[in-house]
């Protein structure tokens, strides 16, 4: 097996190199800021945000296999997706043959960019995977040769690629191995996510940078640093030992769910420049499910993603504002995704050990299966939150249970439960507590209290759409002139439940948050 460690010099990430070369080094103090007036503390110039130059077209030495299609100006989104789908297999083959995960990863990225430039101009190769592997191998060997020459100058012997490559493992194994490697526990969550997007999903650094709205050099450096850390940790391109596999798989699931939630934005669907992280997360989780079919939590996470994403078409109003669950047009939900998610979670619950993702998927399924908001089976949701709280206790779960509790037993019961959790340091001062309290107070008919709590929540959130939503709720409560106004606020005694159901949307706001925070 090839180790990913072993290259002594980390300064060979082309992305990092181009980032450093393309602009003034960030450590170089700009005279404009360090000169007088001395009353200004210094700051250095930032790395500029213009994209680093993509590699120029391949020389003619690159393979230009028989064109199979008319050349077009650029690859279609579909072609690009298919091309990216080849990345794990190509990268895996390269690493198993040569070692040096970090250098191989760069080489594959360069080959991808070369394909994007060359294929539209010169035609698509008959065997895209072989093309990518050939180009990436050549890039890698060039790199290793210059590396070797450098080391020879330093009086070290250099051994290049072995003559007989080992038998390639099935591509599926490579994807799994890569996922474990990219989600290495020594990396921070943002580094795990970025590296997974590049080395497993095959996104370019520029695309990942756009997805996270950071300058490309920042993202290039984050990825480069992640690879250095993996090497420093001595990780190898192997599946983790059996004893560790379960714990490592949990980390992979957390990273995938993080990606899913990062992509959970109003605009990602129609913004061509920003890759759809939600779709990538679902694609990767689906792949993981294929590779690890027996793990109930992998199935649970895939189900949770599908059941949540199914509501995406109804979740945003034409003006971009959030539409709460209770007010969504359920005819716009994706019924195929719901059916798949329900089948997945039903099977997992019946045959696998219970887990938090499965329970959250089950809760999402109860929502998705209700023909109307009023028909939501809140007692079942409450029971599921009770189970979830026992399995994975935490203040965010309790917050959600407080909403369900209010739906079943009335707002006072929910508020009582809320009181037990709002002092928890992990949620104290965060907008979630205020949003839930506002919702429960509104249910209880305390408009002044609800108004104040909505405004407090709005001040504390850093999500712009969520802030707009909370302000709108605050305004709606303030505008209501009587107990019968607004959303039919349970004027009659005993009408609390129907009113509650019509207001259930906020539950989702909190619900979806649960696992992010726990993770």
């Amino acid at each position, binding site marked *: 097996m090839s180790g990913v460690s072993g290259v002594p010099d980390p300064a060979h990430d082309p992305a990092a190199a181009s980032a450093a070369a393309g602009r003034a080094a*960030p450590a170089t103090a700009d005279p404009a800021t360090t000169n007088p007036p001395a009353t200004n*503390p*210094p*700051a*250095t110039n930032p790395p500029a945000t213009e994209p680093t130059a993509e590699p120029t077209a391949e020389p003619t030495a690159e393979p230009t296999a028989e064109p199979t299609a008319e050349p077009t100006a650029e690859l279609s989104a579909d072609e690009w997706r298919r091309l990216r789908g080849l990345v794990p297999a190509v990268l895996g083959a390269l690493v198993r043959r040569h070692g040096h995960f970090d250098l191989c990863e760069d080489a594959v990225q360069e080959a991808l960019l070369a394909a994007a430039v060359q294929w539209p101009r010169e035609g698509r190769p008959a065997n895209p995977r072989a093309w990518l592997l050939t180009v990436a191998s050549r890039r890698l060997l060039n790199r290793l040769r210059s590396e070797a020459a450098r080391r020879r100058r330093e009086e070290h012997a250099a051994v290049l690629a072995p003559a007989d490559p080992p038998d390639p493992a099935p591509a599926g194994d490579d994807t799994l191995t890569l996922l474990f490697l990219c989600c290495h526990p020594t990396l921070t969550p943002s580094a795990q996510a970025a590296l997974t997007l590049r080395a497993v999903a095959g996104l370019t650094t520029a695309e990942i940078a756009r997805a996270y709205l*950071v300058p490309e050099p*920042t993202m290039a450096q984050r990825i480069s640093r992640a690879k250095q850390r993996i090497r420093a940790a001595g990780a190898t391109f192997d599946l983790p030992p059996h004893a560790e596999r379960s714990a490592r798989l949990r980390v992979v699931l957390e990273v995938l769910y993080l990606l899913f939630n990062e992509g959970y934005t109003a605009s990602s669907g129609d913004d061509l420049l920003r890759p759809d992280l939600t779709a990538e997360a679902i694609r990767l989780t689906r792949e993981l499910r294929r590779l690890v079919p027996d793990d109930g939590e992998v199935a649970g996470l895939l189900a949770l993603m599908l059941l949540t994403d199914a509501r995406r078409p109804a979740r945003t109003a034409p003006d971009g504002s959030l539409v709460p669950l209770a007010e969504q047009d359920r005819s716009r939900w994706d019924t195929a995704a719901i059916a798949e998610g329900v089948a997945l979670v039903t099977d997992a619950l019946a045959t696998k050990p219970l887990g938090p993702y499965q329970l959250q998927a089950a809760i999402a399924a109860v929502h998705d299966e209700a023909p109307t908001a009023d028909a939501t089976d809140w007692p079942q949701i409450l029971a599921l939150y009770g189970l979830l709280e026992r399995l994975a206790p935490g203040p965010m779960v309790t917050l959600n249970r407080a909403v369900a509790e209010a739906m079943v037993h009335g707002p006072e019961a929910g508020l009582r439960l809320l009181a037990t959790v709002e002092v928890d340091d992990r949620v104290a001062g965060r907008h979630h507590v205020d949003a839930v309290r506002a919702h429960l107070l509104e249910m209880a008919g305390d408009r002044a209290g609800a108004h104040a709590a909505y405004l407090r929540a709005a001040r504390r959130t850093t999500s*712009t759409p969520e802030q707009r939503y909370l302000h709108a709720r605050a305004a709606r409560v303030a505008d209501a002139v009587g107990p019968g106004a607004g959303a039919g606020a349970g004027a009659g005694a005993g009408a609390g439940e129907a009113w509650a159901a019509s207001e259930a949307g906020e539950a989702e706001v909190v619900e979806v948050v649960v696992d992010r925070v726990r993770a």
Partner: protein
Amino acid sequence: MKYMLLIYGNESVWNSVPKEEFEEIVRQTDAQNRALFESGELVGAYGVADQDMAKMVRVNGDGAPAVTDGPYAEAKEYLASFTIVDCDSLERALEIAAANPASRYTGVEVRPLMHEAKLDV
């Protein structure tokens, strides 16, 4: 999560810093920015030109912009520089702020930046 680290100027503070000490502050700031760039956390770091260079633009009812010199005259402290970082937690942002030499003089204000994700988690 992105955070903005704001450093405000105050003439009496920065004028009282000896030259060598100020150069050390510059050196430490450069070193911190380099470290933040290398960790992939630095989105940008900018020094703001002196308030003498500041302009205030107001558009009144007639739609014509009126440009005047300077910020609000009564401000005792003015923005001197800002840094934007993208890091994993508030705790990390506070750690970065504490490592900035200005934290020993004027303090460093840490403000989360709003984002477009629908849920704030």
